């Protein structure tokens, strides 16, 4: 008894000394918040008009289109997996919605509903393939990524003869669907794109799930130590399939936004976006190896992405610089994360 008592007492002393600092360092978002402030100050200084309400609105809109996907992708990464098909799945979701409505001359809401089912089914397919075959998610979703890329182009050419879908703007239900997925609301005297609300809503729901629900506990556990999770009775398969369906749900919202803001869908779009979602999640503090991260972090990551992509435009620089900034941010964020993890696992 005395051995434990003294051992735990000394552990307590150590904890007391560094407690406030540790608490701060323990937040997954810390690095990204510091980064976001730095990027914000930087562009406020070098880009004229960056601080104008209209510009900030543009930045927020750009952030939200990435952020809506970055949230479920972050949850998936915390659960220890990747989804490389997330980018093209957005396009698939938009294509299914548009083509179903057009070909069946149905109300656009029917297409939206069918698209939700198809997209969720693809997400479930990813999850089930992963848990059944036990292959790395990198391979499984790389496969789905390629298949979907091909299907998107192939089907669109087959049905419409070109690489883009037919306009559905004159179809029944289009205006109301546009209100939900692609409208601009006026709150006070500020115009707010509705995707921003979707984004904030998703961040709030995802944070609640992660921090306060049983499912959140399971997500951290399957990402942190899958075997331990399974051994104490966590339904690993259900959790992972659920996470992939979450990504699919995000893809559905993004896809419908794409469709109802442009009215036609380019079937080759979305390739490469999956990496941007992952980058946003990683900048936001998600460990690439799983088990650690936050939904708010992914939002900050998406915001950094939005600020950088639009800030460069406001500063009237060559947009080529954008990728350089993104890469540098990613490296810095990952280094910080690795350091945080080392601290967390330090004394065994």
């Amino acid at each position, binding site marked *: 008894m005395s051995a434990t008592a003294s051992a735990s007492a000394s552990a307590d002393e150590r904890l007391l000394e560094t407690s406030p600092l540790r608490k701060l360092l323990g937040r997954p978002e810390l690095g990204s918040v510091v980064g976001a402030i730095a990027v914000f100050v930087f562009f406020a200084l070098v880009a004229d008009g960056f601080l104008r309400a209209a510009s900030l609105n543009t930045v927020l809109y750009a952030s939200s289109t990435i952020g809506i996907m970055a949230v479920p992708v972050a949850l998936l990464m915390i659960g220890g997996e990747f989804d490389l098909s997330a980018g093209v799945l957005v396009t698939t979701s938009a294509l299914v919605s548009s083509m179903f409505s057009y070909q069946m001359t149905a109300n656009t809401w029917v297409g939206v509903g069918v698209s939700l089912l198809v997209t969720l089914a693809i997400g479930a397919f990813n999850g089930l393939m992963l848990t059944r075959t036990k292959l790395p998610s990198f391979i499984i979703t790389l496969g789905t990524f390629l298949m979907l890329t091909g299907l998107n182009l192939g089907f669109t050419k087959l049905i419409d003869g070109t690489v883009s879908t037919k306009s559905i703007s004159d179809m029944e239900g289009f205006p109301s669907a546009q209100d939900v997925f692609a409208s601009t609301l006026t709150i006070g005297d500020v115009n707010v794109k509705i995707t921003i609300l979707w984004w904030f809503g998703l961040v709030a729901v995802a944070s609640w799930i992660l921090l306060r629900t*049983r499912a959140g506990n399971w997500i*951290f556990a399957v990402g942190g130590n899958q075997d331990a999770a399974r051994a104490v009775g966590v339904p690993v398969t259900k959790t992972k399939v659920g996470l992939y369906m979450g990504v699919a749900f995000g893809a559905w919202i993004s896809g419908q936004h794409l469709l109802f803001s442009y009215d036609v869908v380019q079937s080759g779009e979305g390739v490469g976006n999956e990496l941007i979602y992952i980058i946003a999640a990683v900048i936001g503090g998600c460990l690439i190896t799983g088990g650690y991260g936050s939904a708010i972090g992914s939002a900050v990551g998406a915001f950094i992405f939005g600020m950088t992509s639009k800030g460069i435009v406001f500063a009237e620089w060559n947009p080529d610089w954008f990728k350089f900034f993104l890469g540098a941010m990613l490296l810095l964020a990952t280094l910080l994360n690795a350091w945080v993890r080392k601290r967390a696992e330090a004394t065994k």
Partner: protein
Amino acid sequence: MTLVELTDVSKHYGNIRALEGVSLEVHAGEITCVLGDNGAGKSTLIKIIAGLHQHDGGVLRLDGEEAKLSSPREALDRGIATVYQDLAVVPLMPVWRNFFLGSEPRKGPGPFKRMDVDFMKKTTHAELLRMGIDLRDVDQPIGTLSGGERQCVAIARAVYFGAKVLVLDEPTAALGVKQSGVVLKYVAAARDQGLGVVFITHNPHHAYMVGDRFVLLKRGTMVGNHTRDQITLDELTRQMAGGNELDDLRHELQRT
């Protein structure tokens, strides 16, 4: 009372005989030690009792009833909690989240059903305090605790969740002398609370300190099954170390 009884149990992986003809009994308030060297089949035996694998032959009885455990969840529901050497916890997660992992208490109606975080944190702190671990912050990642402390968290968790049978997979293997002593004390404490304990180890000294029954495994078969009054520590150590084989080896070495 016999909580778990294995009779002539065997397990094959393809054409590999991992376990053949193993019998053991776990009684309430007693410690059954399973001893064996690496590859003796200890892990396979645990996995059968823990519900991770199903046995191919023989009979597994729980409370006298014949059973086959299809998942760790089912084993848990039947009161069998397994504490694995490496698998016990998720290092990056806070202590309180680990403590309740897989059996989170919840409150609130319908879609707003959420974990009872306050209760979880308080209970974790109180239960660990009972074991002599005074954590100032149950929010710290469990990876920051020492190996012995983590074992104790896992044992405390199993006891708290009303386990009747505690399966411990080499709880002292990676620990120093002092830490091992701490863990052994909690194993004994669990026994005194009336739990049946399966204590897997390759250290006959640790086993003999707390054990009531000793099952010796070697290359997947059972080479000994003794109660405490049937065997001495020296004999246990000798059998564990290879017994007759060791004598043969000694003769051989002497000749050269």
